[in-house]
């Protein structure tokens, strides 16, 4: 009997190409030898451990975050986040579009709180151009920005519950958010990617539609918010799942560059609105709520802190409506903007922390370089510290409480 060798695929000899007929093709281990010490450590499995690839198509990874978990039973031993599934190259896009255009490029970064993504670059451009923004425009910016913060935090509450398995709060949150978003659509013209702030002011004054919706909402906002939070805040299951999970202490938070509600929940009262005041925030009265105990904060603290912030935002909105000055909403500016060569940095307190832009201008109508500092990206570093040693179910609680938005992380 003659034996004929089956025709071999040309890539069968090539060790770099992994064939599907081997069961190893399903493993999360990369086919190349480890390139760094960290890789070697992560991809060596101990006794009883296995990899679990979570995402980018997982129900609760907030978009397209991918995390490779090394688990021992239900316990997470180690993890490796993989980013870049939503990368658009925004910084590069900004270098090839003019200053007006950049505002709309940045909108989809953190699509939950788009107004803040416009605010920081607009402030940086105004520094470059030496523009004085009219006071009414500044008040409108603060008013709409705080509305957007409430919408963002409202959605956070729903997500938090949804990631813990509660079906209902997300719908209540969306009702709340939808009211605000429709309100903002009345003044900005869009529901989600507002594209409202302009260099030297805002695009359009307050109008009747917006004011009537706002007044209607303000009359019941605090009651409605209280009712929605009652569903979870007293719930024993919810509290027991959040308390003590993902504990972030003061020193770690400061060392990792955490900003926003996450660091305030660890007991550090750091808020750009007070630390480096911008716009008309110095004229407004509001507190910087902090939470935390024993020099640190856990997931429940981060959740409750955002509810406190919503209350402060409502205070600010109220003051804005009372103090709103008359006047123009747009500074006189030429159509084509060519700022002097130079550099500018501007940061705002976005719902997730410090959102900043660093712009270098070379005298043309496009920036030479534009760096975007996104709070979600910095806060996401914490998952490596907070998730280790917890259960798989707790990864959701921790990740939801850090509240990352993948649009901003991958940029």
């Amino acid at each position: 009997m003659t034996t004929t060798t089956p025709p071999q695929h040309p890539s069968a000899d090539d060790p770099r190409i992994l064939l599907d007929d081997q069961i190893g093709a399903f493993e999360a281990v990369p086919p190349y030898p480890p390139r760094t010490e960290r890789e070697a450590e992560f991809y060596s499995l101990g006794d009883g451990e296995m990899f679990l690839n979570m995402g980018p198509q997982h129900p609760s990874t907030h978009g397209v975050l991918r995390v490779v978990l090394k688990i021992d039973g239900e316990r997470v031993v180690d993890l490796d986040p993989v980013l870049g599934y939503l990368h658009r190259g925004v910084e590069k896009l900004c270098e090839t579009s003019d200053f007006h255009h950049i505002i709309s490029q940045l909108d989809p970064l953190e699509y939950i709180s788009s107004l803040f993504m416009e605010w920081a670059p607009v402030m940086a451009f105004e520094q470059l151009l030496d523009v004085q923004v009219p006071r009414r425009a500044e008040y409108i910016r603060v008013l709409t920005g705080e509305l957007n913060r409430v919408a963002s935090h409202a959605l956070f509450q729903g997500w938090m519950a949804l990631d813990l398995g509660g079906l209902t709060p997300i719908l209540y949150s969306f009702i709340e958010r939808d009211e605000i978003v429709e309100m903002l659509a009345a003044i900005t013209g869009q529901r989600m990617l507002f594209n409202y702030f302009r260099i030297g002011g805002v695009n359009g004054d307050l109008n009747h539609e917006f004011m009537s919706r706002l007044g209607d909402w303000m009359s019941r906002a605090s009651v409605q918010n209280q009712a929605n939070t009652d569903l979870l805040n007293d719930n024993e299951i919810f509290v027991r799942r959040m308390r003590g999970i993902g504990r972030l202490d003061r020193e770690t938070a400061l060392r990792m560059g955490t900003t926003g509600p996450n660091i305030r929940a660890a007991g550090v009262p750091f808020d750009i609105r007070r630390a480096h005041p911008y716009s008309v925030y110095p004229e407004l009265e509001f507190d910087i709520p902090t939470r935390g105990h024993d020099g640190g904060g856990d997931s429940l603290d981060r959740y409750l802190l955002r509810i406190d912030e919503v209350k402060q935002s409502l205070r600010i909105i109220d003051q804005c409506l009372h103090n709103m000055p008359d006047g123009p909403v747009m500074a006189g500016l030429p159509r084509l903007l060519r700022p002097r060569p130079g550099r500018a940095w501007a940061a705002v307190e976005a719902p997730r922390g410090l959102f900043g832009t660093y712009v270098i201008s070379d005298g043309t109508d496009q920036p030479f370089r534009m760096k975007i500092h996104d709070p979600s990206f910095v806060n996401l570093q914490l998952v490596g510290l907070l998730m280790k040693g917890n259960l798989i179910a707790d990864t959701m609680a921790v990740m939801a409480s850090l509240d990352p938005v993948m649009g901003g992380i991958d940029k």
Partner: protein
Amino acid sequence: MTAIARAWDNLTVTGKILVPLLFLVLVVAPVATVLIALFVGPWVVDVLASNLGIVRFVVAITGVLVFTIPTAFVIIYMEMKVIARMNLRIGPDRVGPYGSLMSVVHGLKFLSKEDFTPTGADVPVFTLAPVVVFLATVMTFLVVPFGPGLVAQDLNIGLLYLFAIGGMNVVGLLMAGWASFNKYSLLGGLRAAAQAVSYEIPLTLSVVGLVLLAGTLSVYQIGAAQAGWFTDWFVFRQPLGALIFLIAGTAEANRSPLDMTEADQEIVAGFATEYSGMRFAFFFFAEYVNVFVMSALIVTLFFGAWNAPFPFPDVAPALDPGSLGIGLVLLLAAAPVALTLLFAAPFYLARSSTPAWQALLLGFITFSVVAVGGLLGAAYLGLDWFAGLAWFMVKTFVFVFVFVWMRGTFPRVRIDQLMGFAWKWLLPASLLNLFVTAAAILVVEALNKAG
């Protein structure tokens, strides 16, 4: 003839197989039935009568299998609608009146989906797992008493049978989790096993006190023991047992907030991650039938089974319809026409603009409502089993609503808290319940003896 031939040519292969079958079913089967009844009828009746147990079993099994599908449909629709309303949504409202055919459409959707088997799966186990889960769930129906006399098999160890068969459920889940060749499925299957092992014990222990009180393991007898006023229901003598049974039953039926096995936010869909099409539908059905069984058990064991909350005054129908003779036939023929005309008259006379056909239609609808209501009322008064079934269904669906309500409200419990709760709280509590019940029985007996 050519028309038929053309129609035949236009049929697909499936149609060419199905149409003759349809013909067989519609024409040949009735004829054959009549012939059999005429010629071999007495012999068949003899055989059936001499094997009444087997006949009863086969009929019951068929009835149970047929009954599960609409039950699951109704519960799925109810869950969609109730959770939607709690979410301030409307829920399904496009298919059928108020969206009531939505679950039927779901079923059709599952039927038309690809039946997918992942690479690397253990194919026989993967295929068998949904069947095991579904069978384990459906078989528990066998001892559930729906009303006086309406029980498929009154086993004298019915309660034991229930827990034994209900425990088989987890075997199917474990099979599914293992055979899917997916780590999420594996985690889901193992969670199911751990959860079932932990919660079977308090579930079983919580009813032992009740068994001591009732003095029987037969589910039917336990139900019958709760006749009379609603204060005789076991929930008032075993409140702790009822609570433990409710919680452990939630875990046993894999319902939120204790649905560890298919926690979407954590392990995608648990054991069902890799399932699609009709196999997934089997899991789906099993879950909702399980909800029904758990509710039925709670009602049977603790909430008076089919008994009304108060003894209904015994109003036997004064008129025996059989005694009317030929008059009954005349009444049946004349009543619809006469009553329709009678009910149509006010509509026609009240407003002159109402056309006659509209008035007649309204009259007929009114007559139908009245007639159906009257029939149901008569059945409720005259037939014990009908009254029992009505009460049983009402109570059971109240508990189905509670299950859905809990799902709509609570976030999910974490797996270690779940296990800790079972071993640290539920198990001691159920043991305490058993101890107190036994002691109370002894004390009462001693007092009776002394007094």
